[in-house]
Every structure is written in structure tokens, then in C-alpha cells.
């Protein structure tokens, strides 16, 4: 059994304009000690999926359906109190998007990390501060810096402090939502190296959410491609990059220019059109309006189900691309 298994997850938002189907029937799993990427464009529901794993949806979020098993245990059936005590941060924690701005400006950094420890484990404050400093050291910050306030930290250091906070209760799984967005490439590279090292040293599993598949290519063992509230392709990451069979995945990968290309490109790849409005998603496959291979089946039949391509490579498409070997 996998570390995390999600089935038929549907998360809707109740808004003035109507019900937004942000996550609409997602199957998802994470093996122990592996890192899983979740890629997609803005508004495809990837952050909502991450938040719902921790039951941290905004007040207008509705958990329409779904089961989440963590370590073989049905954690969605737990009450809020039990979930908070036993699962959130103890088993699954999160590095939030824009985490650089998520620290409280009026508390010292070490106190903020210690706070998350004290919420879950009973121990003297002094001891929790010691753990906080050890955590800072683990993320390559001078433990003495813990006595400083967030504004004295650079963007990269604040992001590291947020990683330390996510590790506070020794979780098995960390969800990192856009962990490097808004950081400069060099800081981004250093953070990716740090995440890789922590994963190895602490035997962590990671779910990395990003719009930037080149970041996921550096960090992940598996990749899920999400489009308009559904996962359209997943598999082992090399397999997906070498053989993307969903037309969206193929388009997405080819839109990323590479700095090492020998020749200059004269034109850039793009996917025409824009993602559908999730207030009123189109009938059939959600991607059919932008897909080069769409037929009447794609327009009129219900969205395709996940089908096996090879060993650990699945796709939800009526007309998948041919495998190139």
C-alpha cells in the first residue's frame, strides 16, 4: 500500500457566481520516500488539491467527495480535533505558497517554529526552542539567526525557515506549494538542492506543486499533470518527459525553452486558447477545445478515465499520442 492514496476527490468552491469545480474527481498516490510532482497552469486546482490533503480549505470550500488514506488509515473519517492532533503537521505538513511572506513579522523566527512544535507535543519551551534551532541548522541557517525577526532574513532564508517549520513535527510527507516561485534562479537552485538533501536524510516523501515543469524535472521521481480540475497523465518522471502521451502534457513540455539548446529557436511552441472556466467546464474531455487531436468522442462523451500506458504510466485521453521508442 502506498503512503498516501487519494480516490475520487472532489472539492468545490461556493462563490457568488456559482459553484467552481476546482478539483473534480482526482485519483492520486504517493509512495513512501518518493517525491511526486503536481504540474499545471494557474487555476487548474493544484493548490486546492494540496490544501485539501491537510483539510485546510477556505471557508467556502466544500469537500464534495473523496477518500484519503495515509499509511493505510482513512484520515478523512477523523474528526477535526483528531485530525489536527494526529495527522496535520505530525504526519503531513506543508510549505505554503508565498511562504516568504507567511512568517509573522512581530515574532522571532525561532519562536514561530517552536510554536508549531508546542502545539503538538507537550514539552518545556526551552526544549522546543532547542529543536527549532536544530531545525534551522538543518536548513543551512545559522541557529543564532533564530533570535532575529523575519524582516532581517533574505527571501531565500525566509523560505528555508518555512521549510524548517514544516519539518517541526517530523512528518512523513511534506507538501511544497510552489516552493521556489518568486525566487531568483540561483536561490531556487540552492533550495532545490536543500529539498533533495532533506528528503534523503530524513526519508521524507514530497509532493511538489508547481507550474514550472523544469523545477519538477529537477526534483521529482513521479509526475502528475493536472488540467482543469483533473489529473490527465501520471507516471515515472523520465517516462513522462520522454514519452508524453497526453496532448496537453506534450504541449506543456515543448513550451519550455532550454538554455542549453545548441541552436536558437526561430519560433516558440505554445498551446492555443486558454483553460476552461471551472464554473462551467465543457462537456467531454476538458482539454478538447485546445487539443489538436480532438474528435466528436472528445467533445460529447464523458471525460476519459485513466488507462494504463506502460508499467507505471497512465493517461486519461481518448486518442493518446503514439509511444515513440
Amino acid at each position, binding site marked *: 500500500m502506498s503512503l498516501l492514496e487519494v480516490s475520487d476527490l472532489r472539492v468545490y468552491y461556493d462563490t457568488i457566481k456559482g459553484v467552481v469545480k476546482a478539483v473534480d474527481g482526482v485519483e492520486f498516490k504517493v509512495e513512501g520516500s518518493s517525491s511526486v510532482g503536481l504540474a499545471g*497552469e*494557474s487555476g487548474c486546482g493544484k493548490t486546492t488539491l494540496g490544501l485539501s490533503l491537510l483539510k485546510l480549505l477556505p471557508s467556502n470550500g466544500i469537500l464534495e467527495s473523496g477518500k484519503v488514506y495515509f499509511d493505510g488509515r482513512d484520515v478523512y473519517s477523523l474528526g477535526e480535533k483528531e485530525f489536527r492532533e494526529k495527522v496535520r503537521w505530525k504526519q503531513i505538513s506543508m510549505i505554503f505558497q508565498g511562504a516568504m511572506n507567511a512568517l509573522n513579522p512581530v515574532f522571532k523566527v525561532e519562536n514561530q517554529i517552536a510554536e508549531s512544535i508546542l502545539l503538538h507535543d507537550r514539552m518545556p519551551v526551552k526544549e522546543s526552542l532547542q529543536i527549532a534551532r536544530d531545525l534551522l541548522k538543518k536548513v543551512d541557517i545559522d541557529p543564532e539567526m533564530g533570535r532575529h525577526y523575519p524582516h532581517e532574513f*533574505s527571501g*531565500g532564508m525566509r523560505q528555508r525557515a518555512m521549510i524548517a517549520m514544516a519539518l517541526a513535527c517530523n512528518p512523513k510527507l511534506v507538501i511544497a506549494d510552489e516552493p521556489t516561485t518568486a525566487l*531568483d*534562479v*540561483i*536561490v*531556487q*537552485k*540552492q533550495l*532545490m*538542492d536543500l529539498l*533533495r538533501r532533506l528528503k534523503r536524510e530524513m526519508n521524507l516523501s514530497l509532493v511538489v506543486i508547481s*507550474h*514550472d*515543469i*523544469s*523545477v519538477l*524535472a*529537477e526534483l*521529482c521521481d513521479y509526475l502528475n499533470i493536472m488540467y482543469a480540475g483533473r489529473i490527465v497523465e501520471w507516471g515515472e*518522471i*523520465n517516462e513522462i*518527459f520522454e514519452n508524453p502521451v497526453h496532448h496537453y502534457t506534450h*504541449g*506543456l*513540455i515543448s*513550451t*519550455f*525553452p*532550454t*538554455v*542549453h*539548446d*545548441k*541552436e*536558437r*529557436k*526561430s*519560433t*516558440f*511552441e*505554445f*498551446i*492555443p486558447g*486558454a*483553460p476552461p472556466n471551472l464554473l462551467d467546464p465543457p462537456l467531454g474531455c476538458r482539454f478538447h477545445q485546445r487539443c489538436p487531436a480532438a474528435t466528436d468522442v472528445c467533445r460529447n462523451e464523458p471525460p476519459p478515465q485513466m488507462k494504463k500506458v506502460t508499467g507505471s504510466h497512465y493517461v486519461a485521453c481518448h486518442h493518446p499520442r503514439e509511444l515513440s521508442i
Partner: protein
Amino acid sequence: MTEEALIRVRNLRKLFPVRRSLLSSIFSSESLNIHAVDNVSFDIEEDEVLGLVGESGCGKTTLGRLLIRLIEPTSGDIYFRDTNITKLSRSEMKPLRPKMQIIFQDPYESLNPRMTVLDLVGEPLEVNDLIESEEEKSGKVAEILEHVRMTPPEDFMFRYPHELSGGQRQRIAVARALIIHPDFVVADEPVSMLDTSTRGEILNLMMELRGLTRSYLFITHELAVARHFCDRIAIMYLGRIMEVAKSDEIVRNPVHPYTRALIEATPVPDPSSRKEKVSIKGEVLSPINPPRRCRFFTRCLASKEICSRLEPELVDIGGGHMVACHLDV
């Protein structure tokens, strides 16, 4: 550096004074300035796309705005063809304005939400007295909308920005800059706010519409985009230009240690080519009154004694490849 260049920049500086409390200004007479652009010289040729690549806070946006005099330089000269535009008054500048345009980063903020597409795109025509009637305006707007693939134009002309997607908004921003056929366009991170699936469309448009403009200064933090979009690339770090070369040359044969670190750190969308480690240390220093030495000194793994006391000049190491570094290159 040739006399025929479209834009020539010489020893350009822009300092922003740091506001201090009364008390600290009494006890210290030293003035504090952010050296956003510090003694920069380069040329942009006719029909050239020059990429300006650097991390946030390195002064690239400031430099772009200086070039079209949206802000005033502290010292130095900018020549547009033969005219030194730094010395011109507002009214003398006016006839040159339609020759230089800018595309801003964020299409969600750069378009007035109360104006229709027709008025947004037609505004540069009106401001510069290039049209005589409303019919002429809508005719020209329709023509440029066709160019940026917002077809049929009648469908879009009377829409407001909130009715358009991010990619469509940025196409409006491109149309707005190019409708008066400027010679020079500053494109300040024109695709960084867009989803990756739609970026290519904007870049292709800017490339195709080279008939309507001559040269671009393309400002970006993404070397991977600049490598393909630009003819030449200038690498900027803490207010200085560190290296300039043809884009093929700079990625195949980077010389400055900072350029090398940037290339190493740029993520590659290919999981089979992962590399750990990047040859750089520390973090970017403050741009407030930087000491007289190589700006990259504290982060460079190859620094020598001379780097700590002398600021290197940008010199040509052959074939127009210019580097500001003391190392034996």
C-alpha cells in the same frame, strides 16, 4: 561600438537616495544611495534584439526605463541615433517619444480597466497626433488587432480588459506599443506573468511583428527565454553589466563566473540531466553604496586579491564578446 547604433549608452548612472531619519542624518554626513544602475555603457544596433538578463533588484527595469527617459539619469549619456536625449527638454523630447515605446510586465495592471480595447490601442495615435478622425483610428486599431491575432477585430474592440484572458491582455499591450511603428521598444518581462502554455504565442508575435519596429531591449530574469529570443545578451549584476555577447556565444562559452553560475542554476526541463551544486556562494549584497571592487567578489569562487580593490572594466575579449572580470580569460 559603432556610430550607426540605434541606441548608445555611455557611463549611465542612476542613484536613488535612501531616506533616513532626522537623527541618523545628524550623526552621519555620509549620504546613502542605492546604486541601481552604476556606470553602464552599451549599444543597441538597428534591427537588433538585445536581452538584458539579471536577478531581481539588479537594476534591469531601472535601466530599461532610463533608456526611454521615463526616469531621469543621475549622470551619463543616452544617444538615440545622433541625438543625446539626456539633455533634451520635455518639449524637445516630444517628437522622439513615438519612436520609443514600452511593454510592461503585468497586463493585469498596465491596462486601464475603464477603457475599451479600441481606446487603449488607439491612445498612442491620439497622444501623438497621428490621426485626424475616429474612422482613421478604428481602421488602424483594427489593422493592428489583426496583426496580434485578435480576430475578427470588431469582436474585441469594444471589450474591456476584464473580459480578456492574460494572454489576450498582453497582446493588447503589444498592439499598443507597436501601433505607431516605433523604432525601439523596451519589453520589460513581457511574458513573466503569463502561463507557460501561452507565453510562446506572445514571443512569436513580438518576433513576427519585427516589421513594425526595429529593435527591442528585452528585459528578463529567464536566461532560457533570452537565449532563444535575443540576438545578443547582456548579463547584469548589482547595477553593472558583467558580460555581453551573442546569445549563442554566451551560452556555449560563458566567461564571467556569474554568467556561468546563472547557466548552471537555470533548471532544465529534462529529468535525465540533473546536476547538483552550483558554483556560487553567499547572497546578493546590498546595492546601497557598494564598495569600489568587483561587485561579484563576495560570491565568486575564483576571486583573486585584485578583485577586492579594483572594479573591472567591461573589455572586448574578441568578436564583440565583452567581459568585466579580472580573471585571465
